């Protein structure tokens, strides 16, 4: 856990308004034998509840040493399963964790001008879209509050 100096990819997900922000840092190295790219180091920083901290921690231990292709496939279910299950209200924490990892991998691909796998690009789009929706909802909420004030 903690910050990583000069990461090869960063995934920033979540929103302070709903109380969870997760940043995942990865370092990528090529395996000399297989020539495949592997996550050699991974760290996280999380502002959030205990479930958010636990899922971030779990995603880092699940992803460490995996190839990028393998890491991309880690789902929220893998995270929650590895933790022995999560209560329904905390499922979004596991989604956030797998999103943060896939955003970090996306970041690595785009920084290095590599061809981004289709599935990863789709996920990136969805994550960014969700982020905007939450921000929009928050904006509406703040405006509502203002109205209440003005009354």
């Amino acid at each position, binding site marked *: 856990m903690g910050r990583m100096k000069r990461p090869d990819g960063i995934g920033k997900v979540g929103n302070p308004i709903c109380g969870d922000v997760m940043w995942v840092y990865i370092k990528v190295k090529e395996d000399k034998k297989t020539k495949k790219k592997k996550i050699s180091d991974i760290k996280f*920083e999380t*502002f959030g*509840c*205990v479930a958010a901290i636990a899922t971030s921690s779990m995603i880092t231990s699940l992803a460490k040493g995996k190839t990028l292709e393998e890491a991309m496939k880690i789902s929220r279910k893998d995270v929650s399963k590895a933790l022995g299950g999560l209560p329904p209200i905390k499922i979004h924490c596991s989604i956030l964790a797998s999103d943060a990892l896939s955003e970090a991998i996306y970041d690595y691909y785009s920084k290095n001008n590599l061809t981004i796998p289709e599935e990863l690009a789709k996920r990136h789009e969805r994550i960014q879209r969700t982020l905007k929706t939450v921000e929009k909802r928050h904006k509406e909420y703040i405006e509502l509050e203002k109205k209440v004030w003005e009354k």
Partner: protein
Amino acid sequence: MLNRNEKSEKMRRIYMDYAATTPVDSRAFEAMKPYFMTNFGNTMSLYSIGREAKRALEESREKVASLIRAKKNDIIFTGSATESNNLALKGFAFANKKKGKHIIISSIEHHCVLDSAHWLEKQGFEVTFLPVDKYGLIDPKQLEDHIRKDTILVSIMHANNEIGTIEPIKEIGKVCHDYDVCFHTDAAQSFGKIPIDVNKMNIDMLTANAHKMYGPKGVGTLFVRQGIKLDPLLHGGGHEFGLRSSTVNVAGIVGFGAVVDIAKKEMDSEAKRLSKLRDKLIEGILKIDNSYLNGHPTLRLPNNTNFWFAFIEGESLVLHLDMKGVAASTGSACSSESLEPSHVLMVIGLKPEQAHGSLRLTLGKQNKNADIDYVLEVLPRIVENLRKISPFKK
């Protein structure tokens, strides 16, 4: 009572969430016992165990009335403070709608008042939500500016449940009476903790409950000054002067009466003791870097403290404290059903991420000086550790 030495673990257990609820005082529990199996009668029955239940009910009514200098028959027992607030707002609005349809409440009321007001808006009433300053205080002059010809009711809480700020109730009541508007106050957090005199403080209706002052859960009260008309929420057998039909919860009400009696004797000394502990806790916690007090430094309940810590989230703070044996609460949204953090903290000017980092520690009878020392020992380390993993840190 809390068991400080649980067998499975030697960890210290400290309860610091007295604003949420309190353990029942053993003296009140003893007083309640006979009313479960021996004197179980219905207060409406004419035979002797029924009359005994009725006598116990009226004795408790007398006790509760005398704590706030009210007349005995102006006290109605309900099932909770939530019910009392619903009855005060909805009951008054419907019984007095011919006089006007405008209601004023503060923007930091408990959800049971806020949501009752929102519901009344749907029924055609108009509600003004009065803003507060950065401490959570209402300005009586600002209230005066918002009173209109059709204003029928003002509801402003005595002390806030989250930040503990005590409102200038006497002055607010005076403004209301100058304009002939009924004044209701939710005193769920202050009743039995600080003195209340409904006459001197110009209060027409007042909400309180038992479980915040070492009484049982499921018992509330609404003081309704003689002459004020309310429509009941519950129709039926006509209990509680026709305002709250339901077979009377005699045992619970006896428990309420007992804790009120205890409060009469112990309230002042306990308030002094808790204020000292509170100030020590505040002073100690504010030594942590980037920590801030929510609420007013002096105009606050003797048992309330509320802080926010930059860069961290309240729910993880609460769970880490729990691992150290300390029970506390937060205004973070993670601990609630909704996505948004506490409305009170937002209204006093905190940003969402600041409100998410809030911690409420509320003190009570079992807290001793050593408990404060313990919290001051464990909390800084927890804050430090959580900041280590926070993306917001500097």
